[in-house]
């Protein structure tokens, strides 16, 4: 691990995000597992709701402000906020403060919140300085850059470096990895044909990459791409990158300093 002068945060508040809570709870459990592995304690403030991005992107700013203020009330006192989604983090980091630019004291509080809110891979690689993941995961992975991750938050190499470090995992190049998969939230509903046409380009590139699994930082892209793969009867899968990390780490013998209670357990269906 890299040396850092700042003290390593011991506790983080987990912002689970709507999609992970509702559709992909295993991504949430994998997040706990990975954070625990690196000695980080996780709080889950149960009063959390949605970051407000759907309302914001649809142009409904008063409602987005309601969501932002609630988010602030829930997370303002946390040392660090971590979420397994670049898109929701980009909402907090990029859009919250400007929503209150008519009220500078509030905007300032949102700026402070933004400074301590991280997407999971940012937290692992940039804050904790994690450089490699122990354990193993056998298979080939193609990396898809989520737009909000790559262009919104500047996440490019971090998660790929960690994936590449896993024994047995082969990271294959995905042509056009930086091109949007066509999800875009409301866009996918308002312009379904445009959206699925963009999806097809992504799926074709993925199929051509020869990788078995497509991975990314965002459940939204993965829901979209995975849904397309399933609809087309593809044998390939789309999986959140933290699930791969957690699977690899699960191969490592449990650490003695963790109590049973701290160790996450995976629920079966």
């Amino acid at each position, binding site marked *: 691990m890299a040396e850092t002068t700042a003290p390593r945060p011991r506790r983080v508040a987990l912002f*689970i995000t709507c999609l992970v*809570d509702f559709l992909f*709870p295993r991504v949430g459990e994998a997040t706990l597992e990975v954070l625990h592995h690196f000695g980080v304690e996780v709080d889950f403030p149960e009063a959390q709701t949605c970051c407000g991005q759907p*309302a914001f992107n649809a142009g*409904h700013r008063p409602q987005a402000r309601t*969501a932002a203020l609630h988010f602030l009330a829930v997370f303002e006192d946390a040392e660090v906020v971590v979420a397994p989604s670049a898109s929701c983090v980009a909402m907090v980091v990029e859009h919250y403060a400007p929503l209150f630019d008519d009220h500078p004291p509030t905007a300032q509080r949102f700026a402070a919140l933004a400074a301590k809110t991280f997407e999971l891979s940012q937290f692992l690689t940039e804050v904790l300085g994690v450089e490699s993941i122990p354990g193993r995961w056998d298979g080939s992975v193609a990396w898809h850059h989520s737009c909000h991750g790559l262009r919104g938050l500047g996440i490019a190499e971090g998660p790929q470096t960690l994936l590449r470090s896993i024994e047995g995992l082969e990271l294959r190049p995905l042509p056009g990895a930086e091109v949007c998969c066509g999800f875009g939230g409301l866009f996918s509903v308002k312009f379904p044909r*445009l959206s*699925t046409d963009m999806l097809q380009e992504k799926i074709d590139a993925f199929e051509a990459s020869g990788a078995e699994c497509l991975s990314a930082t965002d459940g939204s892209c993965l829901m979209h791409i995975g849904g397309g793969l399933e609809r087309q009867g593809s044998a390939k899968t789309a999986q959140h990158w933290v699930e791969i990390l957690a699977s690899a780490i699960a191969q490592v013998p449990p650490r003695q300093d963790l109590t049973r209670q701290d160790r996450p357990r995976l629920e079966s269906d």
Partner: protein
Amino acid sequence: MDINTRDFPARARQALGDGALRRALATSNKSFRHSRDQAVAEIPEWQALRTYGQQAKKRAVDALPTALNAFRDRFTARGGQVHFAEDAADACARVRAILERHGARRIVKSKSMVTEEVRLNQDLENHGYEVIESDLGEYIVQLAEEAPSHILAPAIHKSRQDIAELLHRHLGTAPDADIPTMTRAARVALRQRFLDADVGISGGNFAVAETGTLVIVENEGNARLTTTLPKVHIALVGIEKVLPRRRDLAPLLRLLCRSATGQQLGSYISFIGGPRRSGESDGPEEVHVILLDGGRLDLWHDPKGREALHCIRCGACLNVCPVYERIGGHAYGWVYPGPIGSVITPRFVGLGEAKDLAHASSLCGRCDEVCPVKIPLHKLLLENRAQSVEQGHVDAGAGLVVGGFARLVGSPKLWRWALALARPLYRLLRRTPVTRWGALGAWQAGRTLPSLEGPSFRQRWRRRHARGGGR
């Protein structure tokens, strides 16, 4: 150009199904992107240059009222004439007044998006003038009786074969003529038009206030002929093209040319400082610059929209846009397509008239990345969405959903109940793939909805902590 922005969704659907269009766009966009990327890679300080460009345009646009007056004074002092046109009708009327004064009939034009914006060709033709476009792409589009589909490459939606057939019909070239043959034929046809023209009409890339200079960038030499051969030259320029300082011009030209075509500089860059002076052997006797507002001042007065006026019309955002690449320029329904079009069109024609345009983006942000003057296009699209809602352009259903969302999102208890209720509903809808109902129906058009992986994360967290005795 007529305003057809209301039909955007239908036009986009139709374009999406047009195989020939799709092939033409895919090829041209890829080649544009490739050229631009190479040209940018040659400049190590590209990002710093972009920042300079951003600041230069910000300085220029922020000082717009002063800069416009300074340009008028300077250009007038050099013998030119400057007019301000409030809107399209005003601009066309001012052009016609000049034509009438000179008894002009034949007009040759070089490429100008502002003249498309004010529908100058239609206006002049309706008044009996003979207008010919001299930019090859514009000429092709004019022969085909179409509108340009790209701000830089007007005929980009047409394949080589389409053009060969068109020129075969109009100029008698072979139906399968190669590109050099077609270009030569067009050049021959156009040459006489330049010589016969009474008036030349152009656009303008920059209007430098400090020196009173109109700057035009081009590759075919037709703009230079248009602005020098006829005895009168009229330039139509958007007010946002005024640049107070001469020293900002060179960096902006570098940014423009590399972003637009991947060239170091355009083949011809003309610096026009008024009419022919005594003792000079060529050049027009009169030069007019008509500066068009056309909605730009309203945009200027909106602090959240003003950055859109920084645009130098390079077209790079079109070339990287996955939506533009799939539907082409005509689908957007007006003059300016692609991301910048979806930003400025609703401001010029009305947010209600073009409310779908701001949504014609997955907000992927590739346009922001290539914009040579760092316009935050995706944020401006979001701004348009918000202002559109503020002006009441929202359907009742969406209003209801968003109202409900706001109730829930601020109340953890209601939020939990809503999510718990949503689970059986989601399972039911998911098992009904034929449903055409609302958002889920649209989603299921090409994607299977994921199944629920057992209990929600929230439930799992509670169970874990209940078992562990933690809470």
